[in-house]
């Protein structure tokens, strides 16, 4: 049989597939093969529960100890018209016995719950891939709806694939007969049947899913048991039916991971935890002012669950009030956060400018999505970089921090909080839809290894007037950081007024003096320029002449592409930016070391514009704005072109 993973397409360091001799497994005579990695895509209608199915398979895989990376992909509509192409929702999962970086370019296995799911996804499956289809949904009308004149299951169009036709709905109904559920209700468990089947195929542990189902449906035990029954029926179907002759093992990836306790985590969850951890490490109450928006709402939901950490979450009347409330809380001495996506940032711009002028700590979390305007709410993009950098009136510099992987959102949140608190400034944290919803294993940090973020409030006068009077000057700066004192209401003797009107250096009183304004504008810029950020590291084992420079969520695909190129003997250097403002101090020197610099981005070249402007380097842009992350193979080809040019 064809192997599931072709090594030439693989990004694996241990490239080739390892095949074990056939041996009995679980008491059956079926063949078991060992694979180093697999990419599975579950696809169905938005109402078919594909995200849940994917999540469960991911949890099973994580607890088994594989490295993994996921890519949920769903429409913006909650329930798009059933059976249509726009209504297809999918979840791709890449898991391996070694360290992997992306959710994978092309699935080895496609589970298609209906004709629309097949049509929308089959193009991504390489010939020879396995396709499991729910034949019950392949009625004439359903096929016609998506433009199949004849059945793809019969007309030979799937000849190049290994197709497993499975009447998933019928089998599920059959398995649940004794539960006496209404047909519609029973049918809904078909995703659990599919999950059971795939769990058998890949030897996934099952206890976690059964526990999960019983917890999820704790109030409806008969539904819980029906789902468990469907899940088990799917497993048993794989084990007994002749159509599935082979099952696969993917060994745990323990060798690729440092020792420690691991869990699976999505970007938005890691970011939420990072914020809670930052509050604790700063010894400040966390305050979130937010307005629901895809794909950032999960953070509002998550933080709302943790009131026992003293976390206050305020769902405001609009984006402006969300950041307004956060800024008010910052004035009062909270670690203040607002969470949003691109359109929300546009609305918050004026308040961000106020925060720049007030010089108060504030985190602005932007989970970027496709734009402009409403754009593609559920798809990913990195096109808010210039908005974060420059999207305000006047000279209003704001530091920008970007996480590179889902788990890295935790560290990036702590780092953004460090900058906000140390320098008393708003800070942008630029995640995106791909990081937000994607997940990967995370080594759980020990609480005592987290950075100390304690920032003292002002407690007394900080200035002596000529006549010897001791006074408090709200804009007298720390000579090192240029931060002004954070004096919170309730502190006797430090009563002061701040505002968005230009203020006099030191006293903070309203000032329209031209020289003072010039000084304040330059000082605010100097404060941000002087923020301490670590040097950018360059990975260049072979002394390459081409450097690929990335930022944010492209880290996975770029690194995977770089590995491919190096495997083929091509030298290439890689650097990835966490800090977009200010840039690391060594960035200019790094860029000038290379003959060619290429910058892949999910926008039309925003970082490339910045580095070209700042460092006068002829950076080449490689861009993609299709709402999806880069595919490693395509990116490798593009990078190769630059190397060979």
């Amino acid at each position, binding site marked *: 049989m064809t192997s599931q993973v072709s090594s030439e397409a693989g990004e694996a360091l241990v490239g080739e597939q390892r095949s074990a001799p056939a041996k009995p497994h679980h008491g059956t005579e079926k063949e078991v093969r060992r694979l180093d990695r697999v990419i599975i895509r579950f696809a169905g209608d938005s109402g078919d529960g594909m995200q849940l199915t994917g999540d469960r398979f991911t*949890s099973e895989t*994580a*607890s088994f*100890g594989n490295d993994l990376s996921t890519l949920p992909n769903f429409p913006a509509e909650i329930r798009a018209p059933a059976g249509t192409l726009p209504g297809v929702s999918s979840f791709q999962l890449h898991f391996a016995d070694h360290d992997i970086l992306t959710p994978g370019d092309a699935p080895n296995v496609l589970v298609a719950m209906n004709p629309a799911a097949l049509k929308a996804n089959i193009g991504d499956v390489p010939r020879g891939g396995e396709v499991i289809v729910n034949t019950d949904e392949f009625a004439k009308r359903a096929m016609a709806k998506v433009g199949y004149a004849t059945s793809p299951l019969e007309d030979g169009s799937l000849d190049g694939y290994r197709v497993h036709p499975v009447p998933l709905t019928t089998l599920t109904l059959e398995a649940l007969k004794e539960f006496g559920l209404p047909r519609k209700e029973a049918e809904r468990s078909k995703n659990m049947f599919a999950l059971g089947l795939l769990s058998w195929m890949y030897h996934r542990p099952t206890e*976690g899913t059964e526990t999960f189902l019983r917890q999820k449906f704790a109030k409806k035990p008969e539904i819980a048991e029906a789902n468990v029954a469907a899940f088990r029926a799917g497993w048993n179907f794989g084990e007994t039916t002749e159509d599935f002759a082979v099952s696969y093992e993917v060994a745990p990836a*323990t060798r690729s991971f*440092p*020792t*420690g*306790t*691991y*869990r*699976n985590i999505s970007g938005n969850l890691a970011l939420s935890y990072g914020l*809670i*951890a930052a509050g*604790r490490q700063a010894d400040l*109450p966390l*305050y979130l*002012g937010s307005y629901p928006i895809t794909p950032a709402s999960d953070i509002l939901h998550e933080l709302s669950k*943790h*009131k*026992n*950490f*003293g976390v*206050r979450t*305020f769902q*405001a*009347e*609009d984006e*402006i*009030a969300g950041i*307004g*409330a956060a*800024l*008010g*809380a910052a*004035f*009062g001495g909270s670690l203040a956060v607002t969470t949003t996506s691109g359109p929300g940032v546009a609305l918050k711009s*004026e*308040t961000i400018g*106020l925060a720049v002028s*007030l010089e108060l700590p504030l985190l602005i979390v932007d989970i970027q999505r496709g734009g402009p305007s409403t754009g593609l709410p559920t798809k990913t993009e990195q096109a808010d970089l210039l908005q974060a950098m420059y999207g305000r009136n006047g000279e209003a510099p704001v530091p920008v921090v970007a996480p590179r992987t889902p788990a890295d959102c935790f560290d990036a949140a702590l780092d953004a909080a460090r900058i906000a608190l140390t320098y008393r400034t708003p800070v942008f944290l630029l995640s995106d839809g791909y990081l937000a919803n994607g997940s990967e294993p995370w*080594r*759980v940090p020990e*609480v005592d290894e987290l950075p100390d973020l304690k920032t003292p409030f002002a407690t007394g006068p900080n200035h002596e007037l000529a006549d010897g009077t001791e006074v408090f000057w709200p804009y007298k700066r720390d000579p090192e950081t240029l931060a002004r004192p954070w004096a919170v*209401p*309730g*502190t*006797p*003797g*430090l*009563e*002061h*007024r*701040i*505002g*968005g*009107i230009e203020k006099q250096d030191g006293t903070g*009183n*309203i000032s329209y003096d031209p020289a003072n304004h010039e000084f304040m504008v330059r000082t605010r810029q100097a404060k941000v320029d002087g923020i301490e950020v670590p040097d950018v590291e360059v990975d260049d084992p072979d002394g390459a002449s081409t450097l690929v420079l990335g930022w944010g969520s492209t880290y996975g695909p770029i690194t995977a592409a770089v590995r491919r190129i190096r495997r083929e003997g091509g030298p290439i250097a890689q650097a990835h930016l966490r800090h977009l403002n200010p840039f690391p101090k060594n960035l200019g020197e790094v860029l000038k070391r290379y003959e060619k610099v290429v910058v892949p981005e999910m926008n039309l070249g925003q970082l490339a514009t910045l580095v070209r402007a700042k460092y006068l380097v002829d950076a080449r842009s490689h861009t993609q704005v299709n709402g999806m992350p880069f595919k490693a193979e395509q990116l490798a080809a593009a990078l190769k072109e630059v190397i060979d040019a």
Partner: protein
Amino acid sequence: MPESLLHLVPKAEAAQSMKDFKSDQEVRWCPGCGDYAVLAAVQGFMPELGLAKENIVFVSGIGCSSRFPYYMNTYGMHSIHGRAPAIATGLATSRRDLSVWVVTGDGDALSIGGNHLIHALRRNVNLKILLFNNRIYGLTKGQYSPTSEVGKITKSTPMGSLDAPFNPVSLALGAEASFVARTVDSDRKHLTEVLRQASGHDGTALVEIYQNCNIFNDGAFEVLKDKDRAEEAVIRLEHGQPIRFGAGNEKGVVRDPATGDLQVVTVTPENEARILVHDAHAATPTTAFALSRLADPDTLHQTPIGVFRSVDRPVYDALMAEQLETAVERYGKGDLGQLLTGNDTWTVVG
């Protein structure tokens, strides 16, 4: 009755005077502006409140009145146009030991910031909102505002403004406000009494202050201030008192039995028993709303002033704090290590 939320704000250690609340900043309103009178009334009232002044915060938006915080020797923030209620909400909900005041104008609160105002009122955040209504845009030099009368000739409406004005009291009552009052800049005694009642109210208190802009809309409230005309124009609301006004109190407000609406009648021995007794604590805002509609938006005749409504309603910040306490009772104080680890882990050993 439970103790007022004011008990959460520390008291001043020593007796205060008006001088304690004057900042060192030169007041820069136009000479003759009504804002001076309001500033003096607030600075004069604050010592009576007796709160530690470091625990008092004035937050404002943009406009002439929004310069107010600079002149108060308390903590203060002069923010951006329309957003003061949102910013103050964040401060008040995170710091219940503060007495938080919002100073805003008719353009700031009712036009660009209308959304924040109605939502603050709806939530009943513990804020005292002083809405200076001069029925004009002053700082931008004289365009009509959302409270200007229809047909107003201004720089932006040379042929007269077209849009119907808001009645801020009606708007606030419609937005579920728990405390709504109206007063006039020049009536120091009335203004102070309204401030007194507002400051003791738990939740959002909206105080509309008719304020004269002597540059761009001079005399807008003259009918309410002029001794001869005011008697006929002003209806003074006092809780528990019959609603009567006019020279010799010859006019009164009665409910029309047919429509339920309110109307003004000349008081006679026959109808005297039917004169409405003002109940600011009425459970429903219906009568307060009807009272707010008595005023003629053009002439300001029959303008009620005083406290329209003052009722107890759960306060947002108190509820928020309770949820935090309940969460600790229910789940224990948050343990970060436990949270990060979660329930689904595996271990990699070297």
